[in-house]
Structure formats: structure tokens, C-alpha cells
């Protein structure tokens, strides 16, 4: 069991098949949280509820809906960003997350490794995405 941060390999092919659209209000992307018992890595192809954290507060099975911030090309890099995501009044212990396309067959996009268990107790669990630029954005293709 391990969660390894990665861009999912299947996603790389699916981008070339136009199966993911990150424009504002285009496809719906979601972020699901997982316990340390989950196995998630570059070979992950779709969302699975196996070892997902249980419902608590505003967190429900399938995770939270991300708000697309659109696609930008800067120099030779294309990137996209999402608004930060919070789960409130939640008791959660998560080791990582999966971003997936819920519009299009729950296809996996990327795996986020928290580096250790992150816990909220009757509190807020927030994922902060990085500065949206060519060097830092959450999803970049150079």
C-alpha cells in the first residue's frame, strides 16, 4: 500500500484523445481523499472508492468538486489551476488524494501525496493549490 505523487499515465494518452477539458465550466474535476491503505500512483486509471476516507462533515464519497480556473500557455508551458478546496466540520485522516474527471468516466488525472497523514478533527481540511504559473501550477505540460 502506498501513495506516490504522479501524473497518471493514462491521463497523458487521454489528453491526446481530447478526453479532458480544463476550461472554466467545462469538464467537472473532483478531488477524493484516501487513507494510507490506498495504492495510488502513475498506473491509477480511474477513481475508486476503495480506501477512500469515510463521509464526515462536508466530505462525501467521491470527494469535493474542484472549480476549474482555465488553461493558460506561458512560454513553452501549458498549465491549469483549481480554486482551493475545503471540507468543513470534518473529522478526516488522509494520506493522499486523486484528482479525476467526473464528467468523463471518472478518469484519473493525477495523484497527490501528502507525505504523511493529515488530520482534521471536527475542523476544516483544506487543500491549497500552488501559484498558477509555468513553474508552479498544479498541472503543467512543458
Amino acid at each position, binding site marked *: 500500500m502506498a501513495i506516490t505523487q504522479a501524473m497518471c499515465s493514462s491521463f497523458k494518452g487521454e489528453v491526446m484523445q481530447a478526453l479532458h477539458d480544463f476550461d472554466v465550466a467545462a469538464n467537472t474535476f473532483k478531488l477524493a481523499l484516501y487513507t494510507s491503505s490506498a495504492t495510488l500512483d502513475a498506473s491509477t486509471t480511474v477513481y475508486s472508492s476503495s480506501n477512500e476516507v469515510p463521509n464526515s462533515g462536508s466530505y462525501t464519497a467521491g470527494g469535493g468538486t474542484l472549480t476549474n480556473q482555465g488553461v493558460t500557455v506561458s512560454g513553452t508551458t501549458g498549465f491549469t489551476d483549481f480554486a482551493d478546496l475545503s471540507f468543513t466540520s470534518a473529522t478526516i485522516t488522509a494520506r493522499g488524494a486523486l484528482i479525476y474527471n467526473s464528467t468523463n468516466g471518472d478518469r484519473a488525472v493525477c495523484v497527490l501525496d501528502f507525505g504523511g497523514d493529515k488530520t482534521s478533527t471536527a*475542523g*476544516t*481540511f*483544506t487543500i491549497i493549490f500552488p501559484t498558477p504559473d509555468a513553474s508552479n501550477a498544479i498541472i503543467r505540460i512543458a
Partner: protein
Amino acid sequence: MSAQGNSSVGRFMVYTTDNRGHTPEELANMAMEHIIAVSSAAPEPIRLQAEAYKAKLHELIVRYMKKAVEQDRLTLCQQLEKSGQADTANIIRSL
């Protein structure tokens, strides 16, 4: 001929709380993640200047966020008092 590219997943952060929501300081830290990124590889004078600017901006955001919370609570207390719930208003005022 061939064309090659790399795909990357960026560095994100996770903030959690116990028995409360986020404080203005925590929210300001989150905002800063979106406003300015300072590369550790940047030349020192530029990096120091950027870090100083970041710290000033953080201080300003915290100050105004606290004012926003204070003003919102004032509005809430006024509405509660108007509807005869002075006790609840007092609890909120004491937070």
C-alpha cells in the same frame, strides 16, 4: 524529428484544523501561495526583496481579514439584537 514534453504535478499544501475553522493568519498564508512564489534558486538580493514584499503583503492581508471578520460579526450582532436575541449577540461579540 521528434517532439518531447514533460508533464508535472505542482507542489500543493494541506492545512487542517481541530474544532475550529481557519484563522485569518492561516487564510493569509493560503492566499500568499497564489499571489507570489519565490524560487529558492533566485539570486539572493532578489529573493530577499521578494520575501520582504511577501511578508508585508501577508501582514496587510491579515489586518484586513481581521477587520472583515470584526465587521461581519458587528452586522450579525446588530441583526440578532434587532430580532430580540441579545444573549446570542453577546456570545458572538465575546468571541
